[in-house]
């Protein structure tokens, strides 16, 4: 039985909404080592033999089960790299939570690079939630560089929720998705940066199969002197539909670049991109002030709603 200290608990709550050991299958990694693991009749977790990381096998037609694979970094000077591969069996429907939290108490940087691969079988469905979070009073940087490869077979659905709310000094998130016939991708990305933080998000989606579809909704808030860059890219190779919606609120001295890109290599590909950057509309603040909120409170309400 694993022992969780206060910091572990704080981080698990932030990145995985966990208050105790999760139900179902899980693998908890702390400071580069597996802390605890649990498998079920339908979901097996096997450590990789050639490199750090795990293989997660979900049996075909497994429904309504969940897998939690949170990562905790609680020391300064950590450089943790992990390879996780998900094999999602045909016709299954699973919920996967894979957050990472860094508590950096010292002056050296702490970094976690998670490389996740998903093979979503025919007609299978995953909901993948990835939350990133940093804390700790140390001056060392907290760095998170996730790379995610997803391949969705015929009729499969991948729903991704990628959230970085606070405390991460630098992030470069790379997401590559391949969609086959009738496969569907839904991505919601939410990002908040402040102070001198930098975030770069790259999402490349190839719509390979007939009638595949992709929807990417990215919402971000950039405060203080932080910088954000978004490269969201759809490539339509068949009859398909794709929509990118990239919406940023900019404040203080922040910089935001939003670079959506759509490429069609088939005359029946329908691709749309929308991108907007702007500050909080003054009318929104005024409206909430007329309801009795101060300007600061109003700002908080607006940002909370926007990033919800």
């Amino acid at each position, binding site marked *: 039985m694993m022992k969780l200290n206060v910091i572990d608990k704080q981080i698990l709550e932030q990145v995985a909404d966990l208050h105790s050991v999760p139900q179902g299958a899980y693998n908890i990694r702390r400071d580069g080592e597996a802390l605890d693991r649990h498998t079920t009749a339908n979901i097996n977790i096997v450590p990789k033999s050639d490199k750090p990381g795990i293989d997660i096998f979900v049996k075909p037609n497994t429904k309504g089960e969940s897998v939690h694979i949170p990562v905790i970094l609680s020391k300064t000077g950590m450089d943790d790299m992990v390879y996780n591969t998900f094999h999602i069996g045909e016709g299954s429907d699973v919920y996967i939570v894979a957050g990472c939290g860094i508590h950096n108490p010292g002056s050296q940087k702490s970094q976690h690079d998670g490389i996740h691969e998903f093979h979503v079988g025919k007609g299978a469905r995953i909901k993948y939630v990835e939350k990133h979070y940093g804390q700790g009073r140390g001056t060392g940087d907290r760095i998170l560089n996730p790379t995610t490869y997803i391949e969705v077979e015929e009729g499969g659905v991948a729903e991704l929720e990628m959230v970085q709310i606070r405390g991460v000094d630098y992030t470069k998130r790379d997401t590559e998705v391949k969609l086959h016939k009738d496969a569907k991708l839904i991505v919601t990305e939410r990002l908040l940066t402040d102070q001198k933080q930098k975030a770069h998000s790259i999402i490349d989606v190839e719509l390979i199969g007939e009638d595949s579809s992709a929807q990417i909704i990215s919402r971000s808030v950039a405060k203080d002197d932080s910088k954000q860059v978004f490269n969201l890219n759809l490539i339509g190779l068949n009859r398909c539909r794709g929509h990118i919606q990239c919406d940023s609120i900019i404040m203080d001295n922040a910089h935001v670049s939003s670079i959506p890109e759509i490429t069609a290599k088939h005359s029946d590909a329908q691709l749309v991109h929308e991108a907007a950057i702007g500050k909080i509309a003054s*009318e*929104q603040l005024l409206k909430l*002030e007329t*309801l009795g*909120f101060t300007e600061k409170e109003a700002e908080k309400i607006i940002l909370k*709603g926007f*990033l919800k």
Partner: protein
Amino acid sequence: MLKIEDLTLEAEGNFKILDDINLNLDKKKLYVITGPNGSGKSSLAKTIMGMYTPTSGRIYFEGQDITDLSITQRANLNIGYAFQQPPRFKGITVEELLKLSLGKNGAEELDLCELLLDVGLCAQDYLKRQVDGSLSGGELKRIELATVLARQLKLAIFDEPEAGIDLWSFQRLAETFETIHYKYDTSIVIISHQERILNLADEVIVMREGQISELTTKENFLSKLENDADCRCRQSCEKGALYDEVECYR
């Protein structure tokens, strides 16, 4: 209850948007401010709410000088304002916005369903909707009215509330104005050109070129409209159904 003294609001180049306004509004009365576009109606309302700072003059609310108070402070004195063009909020649902409107002071729990019905919307359909671009202008306007009706105000100001409201709910809206008027003793100021709204008024304030040109009763004001034989359009107007499309200032 609300006393406005020598209120002037100047734009750049000394252009007077409001020109020496003096007004006394009594408790529990319903006032309609009317007048041509650009006569200063909305500016007056926004100055009362604190959204515009007057160049000179004072505003007193229940004896207290509120001229230098912020919008938030005025809101907390239970003054409210319904926007002519309400803003949208991405990610915030109708239910959340209405709950924010109920106030921090733990105002008596109002029935949100009832509230939406009062503005002609079905709660089942709307509570979970986001107050964003997916709502039509008319829907947004009704929700805006609901956010103001949710608050038990001493003074409620409605800036052209009828725009985007159809006939059926218009009737309901009129009843709702009367209800809050009596139930919560709310004094109401409505900016409107609509004869049907003018019909609700205890007093009509007519504005022209930044000044109050007339303070009268609805009977007086409406009879003037009736007797205006010079209006070449009156006949067409009387055929009906044009009220929503044509603004009549006569």
